[in-house]
């Protein structure tokens, strides 16, 4: 049997296959197929030439959701909310963080006001109906939605977290009377109060839902055609995975689907080879993403923003900008050169792909400068045209009256600077010194730009894993199944009913175990943990304390004490005499899966064997200055090899650049470790 992961990016779709019997790992990379990304996904699987019905475990990561949110390419969406509250989405929390910016602009709401509709109903904060739902109101609304040809509907009513009856009723009627639209009910996505944040989360879910449903439906149809028999797993933002059935209803949980796997893979790889503090740097065709790993663990948060719009769901803290190989270089009205965030994507792709793209992109510039080899793109499987890249960059060159090489270099400098800014926002601006970190660089374009970006930030070490172009997909195989279930339950600790609490725990546990069983996880590999979110009465913020599976009266005191201790440890003080309040009960189920073990490679001398040397290439590095780069073939390199920059190391999924004055060594697993020529602490 096989375990397989596929990761759809804006430009390429990657696959990693683990043969469960031999432990062998194989990789694939095919162009993404934006019109129907399922095609690319299937192609990436079929590359391996194995029967799909022998795949026991399939994880899928996709940027479909994030791209739709970033590029504003969701569907025409409407919001139904309680009378008096249609503007909550636009008013937000009424604050701004740029205090002195007199010209501050809020993000535009995803749903314009004329599609934010109010319905007469009202739920109380205690879950009691204050005003019954006025069904006749809904009939008018549905008529209006039909007229406006709305494709997706978000329903978020005031106090629905306390009682979802009205949302459910609206959901039922919408399903009956407007089946062509997809429906997102706020309480099914999050049962937390805070109407703005919940509305924002629901609206974003609705905005992308039809896009995701079309996508998954297609993919599953194709999989069934090939007799796929297991369950399709989708990578979630929280670093775990979920089944596609759930993903269809809650696409918002897959916002960071692919990138998160890169962070997990980066953390795993780095700690295996002895680095605990790592910046992961993932540059694909559309975006560049970064995350911070400290002490071997990726940093996480409970709530995050995409384009300043809040999403209430746990996430591994990833930041990204629109800077990738396909990012388009353009000139603004004032004559300044910019790169991205618009991307040529997979279709038409960079000009050099010969698919009709005419705009100059980062990849075109890399090709023009001599960094990329026109004859070895995707290991020679894909033809690209130097001539078309040149033509595209000419536009920029002409507009500034400079040479094509200089224009290409300008594009690269700008995109590198943008990425350095991104990394700075995760390190310097968080008070971390980049000199204390190592960078793990991956994604198709990551290793190409890593050395320059690391130099900019004084990062002393760059690690380029094997097959960096499919590294996120590899990270997915390093992920355990994870299901989080949370139930809001607010009561003073002294007043909680032990039987009720245990009942809730059992109920959540059963749901989780059922899921894990369907996912072929044996009992002995299931790990269930229980937690309670507690706070001092009167306080707003909670801390999670682990709880026993079966709570007794005596445990209350134990929980109180561990909360006091935790509070002291995290906040530096506590108040043991204060009453504690339970806010929510959580059950987390992990299904441990077998993971690929890093394979070692053959040992060699310090000097690489001559077959690895492909020759020399002239690269334009500075205004009017060319340098000869030695070119190597990565799969011919041996452990212990040392390469002096300037050098280019080629492999099918990526191209690594080692700059002048940088040294690259190959470790026992075949990772490239680039040391920058300056003194600094290593991330060890």
């Amino acid at each position, binding site marked *: 049997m096989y375990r397989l992961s596929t990761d759809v990016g804006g430009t390429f779709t990657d696959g990693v296959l683990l043969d469960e019997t031999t432990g062998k790992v194989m990789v694939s990379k095919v162009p993404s197929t934006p019109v129907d990304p399922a095609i690319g996904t299937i192609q990436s699987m079929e590359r391996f030439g194995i029967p799909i019905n022998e795949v026991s475990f399939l994880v899928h990561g996709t940027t479909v959701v994030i791209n739709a949110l970033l590029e504003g390419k969701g569907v025409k969406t409407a919001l139904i909310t309680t009378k*008096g*509250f*249609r*503007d*909550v989405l*636009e*008013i937000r*929390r*009424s*604050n*701004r*963080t*740029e*205090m*002195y*910016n*007199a*010209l*501050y*602009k*809020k993000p535009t709401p995803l749903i*314009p*006001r*004329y599609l934010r509709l109010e319905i007469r109903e009202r739920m*109380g*904060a*205690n879950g009691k109906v*204050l005003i019954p739902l006025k069904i006749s109101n809904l009939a008018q609304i549905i008529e209006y939605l039909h007229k406006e040809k709305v494709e997706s509907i978000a329903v978020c009513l*005031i*106090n629905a*977290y306390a009682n979802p009856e009205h949302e459910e009723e609206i959901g039922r009627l919408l399903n009956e009377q407007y089946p062509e639209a997809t429906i997102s009910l706020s309480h099914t996505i999050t049962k937390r*109060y*805070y*109407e*703005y*944040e919940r509305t924002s989360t629901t609206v974003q879910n609705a905005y992308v839902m039809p896009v995701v449903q079309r996508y998954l439906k297609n993919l599953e149809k194709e999989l069934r055609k090939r007799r796929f028999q297991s369950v399709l797993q989708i990578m979630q933002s929280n670093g775990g995975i979920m089944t596609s059935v759930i993903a269809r209803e809650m696409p918002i949980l897959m916002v960071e689907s692919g990138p998160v796997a890169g962070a997990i893979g980066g953390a795993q790889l780095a700690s295996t080879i002895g680095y605990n503090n790592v910046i992961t740097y993932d540059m694909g065709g559309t975006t560049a993403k970064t995350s911070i790993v400290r002490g071997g663990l990726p940093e996480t948060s409970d709530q995050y923003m995409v384009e300043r719009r809040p999403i209430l769901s746990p996430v591994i803290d990833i930041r990204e900008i629109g800077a990738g190989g396909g990012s388009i270089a353009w000139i603004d009205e004032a004559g300044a050169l910019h790169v991205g965030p618009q991307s040529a994507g997979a279709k038409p792709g960079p000009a050099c792909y010969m698919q009709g793209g005419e705009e100059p992109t980062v990849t075109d510039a890399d090709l023009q400068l001599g960094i990329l080899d026109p004859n070895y793109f995707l290991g020679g499987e894909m033809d690209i045209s130097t001539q078309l890249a040149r033509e595209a960059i000419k536009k920029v060159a002409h507009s500034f009256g400079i040479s094509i090489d200089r224009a290409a270099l300008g594009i690269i400098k700008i995109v590198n600077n943008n990425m350095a800014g991104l990394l*700075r926002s995760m390190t*310097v*601006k*968080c*008070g971390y*010194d980049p000199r204390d970190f190592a960078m793990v660089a991956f994604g198709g374009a990551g290793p190409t730009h890593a050395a320059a970006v690391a130099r900019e930030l*004084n990062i002393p070490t760059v690690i380029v894993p094997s097959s960096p172009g499919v590294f996120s997909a590899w990270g997915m195989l390093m992920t355990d199944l994870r299901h989080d279930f949370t139930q809001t339950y607010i009561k003073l600790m002294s007043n909680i009913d032990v039987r009720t609490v245990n009942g809730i725990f059992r109920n959540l546990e059963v749901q989780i175990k059922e899921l894990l069983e369907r996912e072929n996880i044996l009992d002995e590999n299931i790990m269930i943990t229980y937690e309670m979110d507690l706070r*001092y009465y*009167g*306080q*707003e*913020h909670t801390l999670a304390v682990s709880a026993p599976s079966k709570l007794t009266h005596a445990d209350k005191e134990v929980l109180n004490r561990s909360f006091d201790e935790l509070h002291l440890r995290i*906040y*530096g*003080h506590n*108040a043991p005499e204060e009453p504690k309040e339970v806010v929510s009960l959580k059950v987390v189920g992990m299904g441990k899966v077998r993971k690929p073990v890093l394979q070692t490679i053959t040992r060699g001398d310090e000097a690489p064997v001559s077959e690895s040397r492909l020759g020399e290439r002239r690269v334009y590095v500075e205004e009017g200055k060319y340098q000869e780069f030695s070119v190597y073939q990565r799969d011919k390199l041996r452990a212990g090899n040392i390469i002096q920059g300037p050098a280019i190391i080629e492999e099918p999924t990526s191209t690594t650049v080692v700059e002048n004055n940088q040294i690259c060594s190959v470790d026992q697993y075949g990772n490239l470790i680039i040391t920058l020529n300056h003194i600094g602490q290593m991330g060890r």
Partner: protein
Amino acid sequence: MKKELNESTREIIRYALMEAANEMKIKLIKMSVDTLFYEAKDFSVGLFNSKGEMLSQAAGLPHFLGNLGQSIRETAKDIDGFDKFKPGDVYITNDPYSATLHINDMTVIYPIFWDDELIAFSVARGHWSGIGAAEGVQVVSADNMFKEGNVFKSIKLWDRGKLNYEVMKIITYNCRIPDKIERDLYAQRAACYVGEQRLKSLVKKYGKERFFNYTDAILDHAERFARNNIKKIPDGEYEASGYWDDNGVNLNMPIPIHVKVIVKGDRVTIDLTGSSKRVPGSANCGRTQSETECRWAYCAIVAPFLPTNEGIFRPLRVIIPEGSIFNAKKPDATYLGYGPADVAKDLIYTALASAAPRKVCAPNYGQMENGAFYGIWPKSQEFWYGWVMMAGGTGGNFYRDGQNAMTFGDLSNEPQEKIERNYPFKVIRYTLPPDSEGAGKHRGGFGLLCEVEFTGKRWSGDDVCKEARVCAYAGRGKNAPTWGILGGHSPRLPNYIKVNPGTPEEVDAFRKSGYPLKVGDVVQFYACGGGGYGDSLERDVKLVQEDVKEGLVSVKCAKETYGVVLDSDTYEIDVEETKEFRQKLSASRDKGRKK
């Protein structure tokens, strides 16, 4: 920059100091128990050098941009010099004449030492929901300081690490929410502690002398940055006049505010001479606070995006004469003093509108409109209180329209669902009122309408409170509405607050302390939109049409204020009629001006 310093390390330290301030902020949010702290973020935290000059301050309220450092210097003066600070000492001050915005702003001053040498300060200020006022949470209609609460000026609360609990007892015994006050005070000190730890780790890493050199370099850089931007504004003396609603006693007598901005080379002087004398009511503003509001406008014009520090303000001088409303003296009442000071802030923008048209925005709704509700739960005898924190429209600017329903800083509303859980209220409406904007080529943002009903019921159903009180206040009402610039309009309706609007029992609650509410009473808060920027007849007709489609501008107002004629059903533009009508409006306006 000195030779051994490099720019990248300087930037790392700059952002590390910013992040230290942000961590202080997070600490305060997570540890505090008052909703004004953890939800509304009505506080400010920052790090200062050993002279009390700001090194970094977290995003919070712009109202605190200058007065934290001044609080340090004032305390040092009171205790006879900086050398009197000892390791482990913590001082508090809420003196509105020398340090704070009003009495409720309790400031914790925490000196930081390295080998027994004073190297810096960590400061955390927050607005306390009560510090022993004559009535409820706060009093906005007092005529002297003693009705507003207790003042603690430069009091040493921790002496070399040991809490002076006797003083703590005096503070807490004299207010209505003793437990909250005590816990929030500990939270403020803890936030300062976090700042201390982060700052010391930088000193450890870079060495004390280098750290000092770098922090000096950071301030110098900010100063250069500011001076370069000042040079871009043409030299000149720019003036503007306006009004604040009233003197606090006679609510129908607007009082004058005047500002003069002198730009000369790379220096700016702001002169508040010509503004009203001190008033009998609570609209007096302490000198420190008045300066702070001037700093705010100045900063928005010369360095809006640079992390703020003292260097930015070195080129600025503020002149405030004795006896001015902006130079309050004990025992003046000061609760609303930031209102007139904020008018001065917007007058600075107005004065500079033609000299720096791309840098300023038209005035906003006036940034002051709130209601504090309070009462007692009969069964538990618990004192409860809750807030409606309003926002309003911001002014238009050179590039675009103003923003809808937004405050002026990180001050956030309390979620309506939370209001209903915590207080005996039901929120009826929370919405953008149509036609609330100040018209202009770039119009102001739309305002905010919020209506709450006092239900008396505790959400859990186990208690009923039959009477509550509200302390409501706003500024820029009918006597002194906000305004537009460069030909832009005022909003059609000024700010108001009413109890039971549209009923025979309607009461104007624009400025009420402790107004009693009975079950079923409705309080309506209306915050207007922002002022307009430029002539409304020059507004793009498509944008007017869009506002009409969005239900934010009526067909009637589109015609009357923007001269755009639309079909009332299809919202199609009648191009011919619009052209004609705009010409007609323009002519009649010219005629009006000639008169």
